[in-house]
């Protein structure tokens, strides 16, 4: 399919949901309202770690306007049960306990009770009147503390707060280091950071007296929400219907449920629909950010630049319950390079912080920050061009990936060559500027998807899937239907359906929607096309095998001169007389996806008086397989780059000694704004993915991976200082500039405590 010529794929039509979104008509999670609506509020723990001694809700229940109060006693206890369909397996027991604490609170912000009342003000006032007696326990607020002997334990089952240890190895690492001419070993740290979607979590739940629950919510995975609600409440999935609203960003953070089952229980108690919306403070303190990390990495190389050995240990904060992306980080760590000998160990560490959730390429950015910093140092040590060093070691088709499988066609070399030949790479730098390059990798996901394509009598069509559209997937799906049927994109209406209407579809996540759901859409449209060929064969009274399809027409067999080709519109008009409606459907489980690689080039200018640094030029290059809608592909690359730049330069959860987050708002949790960034140039590389009929591979996650290393390498280039701890915020950079006498060879870590 690599040489297939496309008519609609690769064009840039206006998205079908666009007008609704530029006029304010599109309805997001908090925009849903119903008659008789009640408003919910959550009481959250002020402590990071405490035993719940007692909860007295009587004062709240006595407040006029309060219709229901719930605590964990109102929810059946959930044993560990795995829920699939998200990017990673989700533990229902932990999700339930995280949603409403049972015996212990494990992080500041942990929900302990919820209230539904006739107004939000009353609900909040009632929540404040709930009396909780805590037995406060010493908190575990960081990796080093968590794994130290004698540390307080979050869970009985995890000795030293280590929930899991994983190991990946190959070859003989000692012999490998023995062959090395240069060995670099460093320890890297990154703080907990948040996805930072602008729309807070929000839902409305309506529990009927018939035991049926309807949930409207902003989610990446309506089927995950349905199954989580059913599992946590102990009811059949058939009793629960989830209607996804438009979604205001997710980046992995809107897969786990925080509010929906709570709203459902409140609604069941009150017999009225209940709306719950998180405040920004709640989003930061009580939804899932991604892990703070510590990565120790040692890499050896020969004089000619060949990487020969690596040894690494990764510790990732899981937050209050097990399940950090440490394993994924370990698998990504060396994915760009062919290194014959390595040992990688990874630890999943529980701490008294919010339970982490997926965040765009979960686990990969922190791991590749380490790898790409060390590879940069090796290039400096050897006096090699950093792109040349990477090209010399780049993974290619046929190599066994460090995480196991053999790579199919992958585009890392093409990406690096595009980076090297980009004018940015050779452009002169100004005073106090530096340039860095770094690679990124993500597996990409396949998973389960369904699609339905319905042909209308006038020859237009509808396509329906179960994936909330976060960044233009509907228009891409319409393009696929247009491509398969040969009708204009504008004549295809794409829709996101609820869980009663769509066939089962796993989350919008894992960069899987255009890939796996796209494949289902292509197959469903192909099903329609085959049915149209059958109708044409029936009209012409010929064998279906002799009917070809070309450019939106059924073509009669040659030598059958009395028949003219029939268009989609002509065949559609005859549907009632040729067998009835035509509906195409497909469901699939794509077990694999084509992995994605990217490389970013960053120019940073550092103000030596304040430590503030500014990205002055940025280029993102990525193998996307095939860009269905290039504008939205570029948008993913630019948006991922911006998020990664924020992670590198400013974003961090700051906790006090008691484990209370000190910056739970957008003023102090500093995400990039328009004036912080330059135009972000993009180069789309297309190495077709043979697993997809158009060659598509996942796009969305790779671009958040390179910026951490690219920015840090640019900082090294500009200042001579190798920073191994993020973010490179002005206080940290200034402190390093002031304290480094001979900056050129140093690798320094300025702990947060030294900056105040």
């Amino acid at each position, binding site marked *: 399919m690599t040489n297939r010529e496309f008519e609609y794929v690769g064009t840039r039509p206006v*998205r079908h949901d666009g007008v609704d979104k530029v006029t*304010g008509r599109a309805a997001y999670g908090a925009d849903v309202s119903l008659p008789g609506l009640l408003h919910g509020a959550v009481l959250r723990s002020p402590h990071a770690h405490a035993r719940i001694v007692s909860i007295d809700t009587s004062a709240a229940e006595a407040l006029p306007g309060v219709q229901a109060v719930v605590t964990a006693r109102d929810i059946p206890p959930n044993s560990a049960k795995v829920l699939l369909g998200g990017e990673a397996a989700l533990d229902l027991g932990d999700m339930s306990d995280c949603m409403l604490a049972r015996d212990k609170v494990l992080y500041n912000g942990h929900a302990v009770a919820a209230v539904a009342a006739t107004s939000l003000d009353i609900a909040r006032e009632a929540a404040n009147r709930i009396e909780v007696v805590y037995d406060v326990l010493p908190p575990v607020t960081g990796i080093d503390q968590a794994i130290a002997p004698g540390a307080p334990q979050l869970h009985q089952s995890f000795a030293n707060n280590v929930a899991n240890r994983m190991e990946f190895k190959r070859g003989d690492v000692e012999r490998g280091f023995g062959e090395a001419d240069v060995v670099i070993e460093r320890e890297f740290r990154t703080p907990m950071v948040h996805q930072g979607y602008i729309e807070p979590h929000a839902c409305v739940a309506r529990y009927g007296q018939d035991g049926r629950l309807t949930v409207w919510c902003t989610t990446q995975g309506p089927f995950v929400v349905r199954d989580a609600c059913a599992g946590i409440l102990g009811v059949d999935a058939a009793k629960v219907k989830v209607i996804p609203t438009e979604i205001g960003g997710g980046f992995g953070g809107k897969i786990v449920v925080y509010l929906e089952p709570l709203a459902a229980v409140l609604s069941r108690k009150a017999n009225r629909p209940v709306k719950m919306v998180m405040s920004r403070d709640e989003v930061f303190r009580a939804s899932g950010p991604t892990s703070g990390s510590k990565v120790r990495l040692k890499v050896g190389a020969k004089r000619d630049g060949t990487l020969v050995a690596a040894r690494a240990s990764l510790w990732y904060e899981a937050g209050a319950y097990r399940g950090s992306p440490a394993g994924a980080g370990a698998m990504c760590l060396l994915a760009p390079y062919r290194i014959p000998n390595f040992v990688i160990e990874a630890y999943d560490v529980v701490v008294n912080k919010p339970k982490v959730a997926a965040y765009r390429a979960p686990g990969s950015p922190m791991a590749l920050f380490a790898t790409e910093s060390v590879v940069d140092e090796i290039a400096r040590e050897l006096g090699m061009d950093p792109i040349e060093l990477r090209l010399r070691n780049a993974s290619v088709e046929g190599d066994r990936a460090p995480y196991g499988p053999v790579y199919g066609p992958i585009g890392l070399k093409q990406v690096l060559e595009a980076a090297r030949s980009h004018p940015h790479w050779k452009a002169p730098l100004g005073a106090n500027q530096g340039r860095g390059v770094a690679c990124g990798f993500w597996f990409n996901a396949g998973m389960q998807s369904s699609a339905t394509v319905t042909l209308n009598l006038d020859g237009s069509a509808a396509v329906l899937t179960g994936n909330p559209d*976060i960044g233009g997937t509907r228009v891409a799906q319409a393009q696929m239907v247009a491509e398969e049927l040969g009708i204009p994109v504008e004549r295809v209406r794409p829709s996101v359906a609820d869980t009663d209407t769509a066939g089962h579809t796993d989350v919008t996540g894992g960069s899987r929607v255009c890939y796996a759901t796209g494949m289902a859409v292509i197959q469903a449209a192909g099903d329609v096309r085959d049915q149209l060929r059958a109708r044409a064969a029936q009209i012409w009274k010929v064998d279906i095998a002799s009917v070809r399809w070309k450019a939106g027409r059924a073509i009669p067999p040659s030598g059958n001169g009395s028949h003219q080709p029939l268009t989609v519109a002509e065949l559609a008009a005859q549907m009632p007389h040729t067998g009835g409606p035509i509906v195409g459907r497909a469901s699939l489980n794509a077990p694999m996806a084509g992995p994605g690689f990217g490389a970013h080039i960053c120019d940073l200018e550092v103000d030596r008086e304040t430590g503030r640094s500014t990205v002055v030029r940025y280029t993102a290059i990525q193998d996307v397989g095939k860009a269905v809608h290039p*504008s939205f592909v570029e948008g993913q690359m*630019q*948006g991922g780059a911006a998020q990664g730049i924020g992670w590198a330069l400013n974003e961090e959860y700051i906790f006090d000694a008691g484990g209370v987050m000190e910056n739970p*708002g957008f003023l102090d949790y500093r995400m990039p*704004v328009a*004036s912080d960034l330059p135009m972000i140039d993009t180069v789309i590389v297309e190495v077709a993915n043979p697993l997809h009929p158009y060659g598509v591979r996942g796009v969305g996650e790779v671009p958040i991976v390179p910026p951490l290393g690219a920015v840090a390498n640019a900082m090294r280039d500009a200042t001579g200082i190798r920073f191994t701890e993020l973010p490179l915020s002005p206080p940290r950079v200034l402190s390093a500039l002031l304290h480094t006498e001979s900056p050129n060879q140093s690798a320094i870590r300025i702990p947060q405590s030294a900056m105040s």
Partner: protein
Amino acid sequence: MMSKLHVETTINGQPVEFLCTGSETLLDALRNTIGLTGTKEGCATGDCGACSVILNGRLVPSCLVLAPEAQGQSVTTIEGIAEGERLHPLQQKFLEHAALQCGICTPGLIVAAKALLDAKPSPSEEETRYWLAGNLCRCTGYEKIIRAVLDAARAGSAAL
């Protein structure tokens, strides 16, 4: 419970009356009482710009304006940017440039950009970036938004 205040104001050129408490924000009144949910809440602390509206010609975060302050004033929300069926050039250019992904920040950004073009019809890229620095977008990296606004400014001046 405190008794409610009666407010008469003009929203998107139409006279509007509503009741609110003294502590209610204009954002809450717009969304919950008046039914104009195009204005979004992202933070309620004036840091994200999702709730941007134009109050008497001035760009403000409606989460930091008390609803009673709208008395006798004129408010423009995202629902008032298009002229009937005809999209404003900014809306058109946002669509053409694919300047939105999830779209939650889009109403605030379009309102903020309109205030910019009203004040300065041909802004530079830098002026545009600083003007829009109060509007967070987490999806796009801003590039396509800036291009859309600059293109709309060009289209606007070409139309004069």
